[in-house]
């Protein structure tokens, strides 16, 4: 390459000529020893069980199952539920009546007597539920 061709350097246009020279330079090919190493790697990876279609192993199958239940978050949920079950089993919580009462906030202990359920000024009833049913029957008739 002549000196004249480089008069533009370091302009970017001059760089293009430098790049062209670099591309044209014949790079040393891989040495025989290196190529042999690459071939050895290729053959080793091609050994049965190394490169062929592989049957999914235990971990792969577990991974597939895990993916089916939503991945790690799903597994965490299942684990938490399991631990909660174990805890309940060991802790043996007492009767749940208190829990029910607190849930219904006293509604479960409301008197079934009709006087509580209807306005006393209209019916003046102070009877049990059986009486209430008879009153309702009378109304329907």
């Amino acid at each position, binding site marked *: 390459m002549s000196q004249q061709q480089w008069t533009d*350097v370091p302009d970017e246009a001059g760089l293009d000529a430098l790049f062209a*020279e670099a*591309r044209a330079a014949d790079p040393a090919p891989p040495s025989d020893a*290196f190529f042999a190493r690459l071939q050895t790697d290729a053959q080793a*990876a091609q050994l049965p069980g190394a490169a062929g279609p592989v049957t999914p192993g235990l971990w792969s199958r577990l991974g597939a199952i895990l993916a089916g239940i939503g991945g790690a978050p799903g597994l965490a949920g299942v684990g938490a539920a399991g631990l909660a079950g174990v805890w309940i089993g060991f802790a043996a919580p007492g009767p749940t009546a208190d829990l029910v009462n607190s849930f219904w906030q006293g509604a479960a202990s409301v008197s079934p007597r009709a006087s509580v359920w209807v306005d006393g000024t209209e019916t003046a009833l102070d009877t049990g539920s059986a009486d209430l049913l008879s009153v309702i029957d009378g109304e329907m008739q």
Partner: protein
Amino acid sequence: MIASPGPDDDALLARYAAGDAVAARQLLERLAPRILRLARRLLQDPVEAEDVTQEAMLRLWQIAPRWQAGGAQPATWLHRVAVNLATDRLRRRRGVGLDEIAEPDDPDPGVVEGMMQTDRLRALDEALAMLPDRQRVAVVLRHLEGMTNPEIAATMGIGVEAVESLTARGKRRLAQLLQGRRDDLGYDR
């Protein structure tokens, strides 16, 4: 750049996965020299370049049974692996993250003043080595490997516009760096 005569790389890779040793050799002859050349240009260290090439080829063999033909070309995939491996080594050399590397805008001819080599290509290699990693990769792929911008984008995992920006900045920076080596380049004063 990517296309090769004869059976396409997808077919050869499928044959390799099926146990065809000849296909392995054909793929090696077709791809290994390119990957080695790229690694040499990026790393400028023959031993490291061979290591990267060997690792990249090994990964290709390992993925062969799961390779899905019709997607990315094996050559493009291999270039990407090689670029990533080389970039990792460049980062380790510098001991800092890629994003932490400053990309100077101002000419700094003093950086290259001490260089005494007279070979133009050597000067180019040395200037390339001073570029930030991503600029170096983009410039090497574009101007030395002759890849198109979309091919570079696929290889680097970035957009075409980013490729254009990187190559433009890299080329500008190279020109600045080589300004201090006019004699080496045969540049008339």
